[in-house]
């Protein structure tokens, strides 16, 4: 299965992935319209420290602790992609407790959101990958 892989050697800490993620999941057709005067809440996040930076988003684990832990059945695996049914989610945070990478977080409505590899928006290659200027984030079969 194709996954997002991150190579911190090439991460510039530019945070563009976060903005492309927020745009992709905004449902809007224009980045300015989507993100102007907004504090973004992306599903991919940059960690930075001492000139090291890298992006972190859902690893789509083969043994997904978040799915196994989900108390409402909102998280499920479909063709290897871990997705969330926000309609079922009650925002109990058990997935936050379980995810070893810290990749599930609440959306602005208090239910959980996570990277779903842009399968629920415009589709194609995930936007964070498209938006990365230095191929620090790639979408590959390995």
């Amino acid at each position, binding site marked *: 299965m194709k996954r997002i892989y991150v190579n911190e050697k090439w991460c510039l800490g530019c945070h563009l992935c976060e903005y492309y993620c927020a745009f992709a999941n905004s449902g809007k057709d224009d980045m300015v319209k989507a993100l102007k005067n907004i504090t973004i809440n992306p599903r991919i996040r940059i960690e930075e420290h001492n000139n090291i930076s890298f992006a972190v988003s859902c690893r789509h684990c083969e043994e997904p602790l978040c799915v196994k*832990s989900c108390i409402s059945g909102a998280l499920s695996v479909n063709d290897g992609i871990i997705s969330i049914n926000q309609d079922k989610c009650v925002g*109990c945070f058990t997935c936050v407790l379980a995810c070893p990478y810290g990749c599930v977080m609440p959306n602005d409505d208090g239910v959980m959101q996570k990277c779903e590899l842009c399968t629920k928006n415009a589709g194609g290659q995930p936007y964070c990958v498209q938006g990365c200027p230095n191929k620090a984030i790639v979408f590959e079969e*390995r």
Partner: protein
Amino acid sequence: MKYVIIGNSAGAVGCVEGIRQVDKDGEITIISNEPYHTYSRPLISYLLYGKTDEQRMKYRPDSFYEDNGVKTYLGKEAVSIDKDNKKVILNDGTEICYDKLLVATGSRPFVPPMDGLDKVENKFTFMTLDDAKALEKAINKDSNVLVIGAGLIGLKCVEGICDRVKHITVMDLAERILPSILDKDGSELVRKHIEKKGVEFILGDSVAQFTSANTAVSKNGLELSFDVLVVAVGVRPNVELVKDIGGEVGRGIVTDERCRTSIPDIYAAGDCTESMDITADQMRILALLPNAYMQGETAGITMAGGTKVYDKAIPMNAIGFFGYHIITAGSYDGEEYVKKDGDSYKKLVTRDDRLVGYILIGNVERAGIYTSLIREKRPLSSIDFDLIKEKPQLMAFSKRERAKTLGGMK
């Protein structure tokens, strides 16, 4: 192969999904004394709170049984197991043969003997969908509710009904709320937050006697009047089916790391079992949905001939009240690192170069990174603990490790 599962909650569903990872064809039968499609028990408080409904709180889609080829006996109770003839006997006399049996019978509310309790008409426990439905019928805008028990169940019940009743009083024998998961300081923060919603706490006290259908007198002499009583002091595991046929039972049903009981071809999972808490090195009942699912899955895979072990059990809880979140895991015996910052509270507990427990209140972002340190028994000397103390982050791990987890390096 005939698989039979007694129970229809997380352990049972985990078992079905575990079996189907290995065996696509075997016959699976689920027996449950509740007449419902599998639903999430912990969601009953959210149901009352209005965050979910009966349809959405189904733990798996409507087609779950059909998709997985599961035959169900819903609303039927398994009354005994004939281990010699490998049969389960139901309350209507039906006998169901098994090759492999999972006991996932869960637990039931514990109602301690209290003087005069029989006088109280409007008394409820808070465990099942039926409990929630009954409670919902009994309450209205003018109700005064007395909740006995300031633990997880009691307080989730409080959150669920808070906006739908006039007043809630919570009484607990313990000096603080959520004693099983919080320390004193954390407990106080959470209590203050819940109190803001008008909930009244009476701690370090208990009911001495119910003097009428609507009145209780406490040991400290307080007289409390109420319209509705909720008893949520604790639960007891449903171990009888196994105990009756000579299976080994401690606090809960004893299982090994592949979820086998002491009786051949009988497995157990979920709240009815006890498991090894790796943060305290002792057998405990870890009555938590994620653990139940993972035990069930392990049992299912094992029953179907696959290989899987369940050996990373830890106590862990994610709970929130009125948008204020708490995540805890592990045990709290060890060296402490505490940080308070406004409404946020963090305690990390380390012992023998390991993180063994933590409490996060308020800011619970990325808590799973801490959980993982506990589960994986990661030596703290192998990570940058100063960074981990600051916040859960992958930056604390080595470059090489990140290359594996994030970069797909083998």
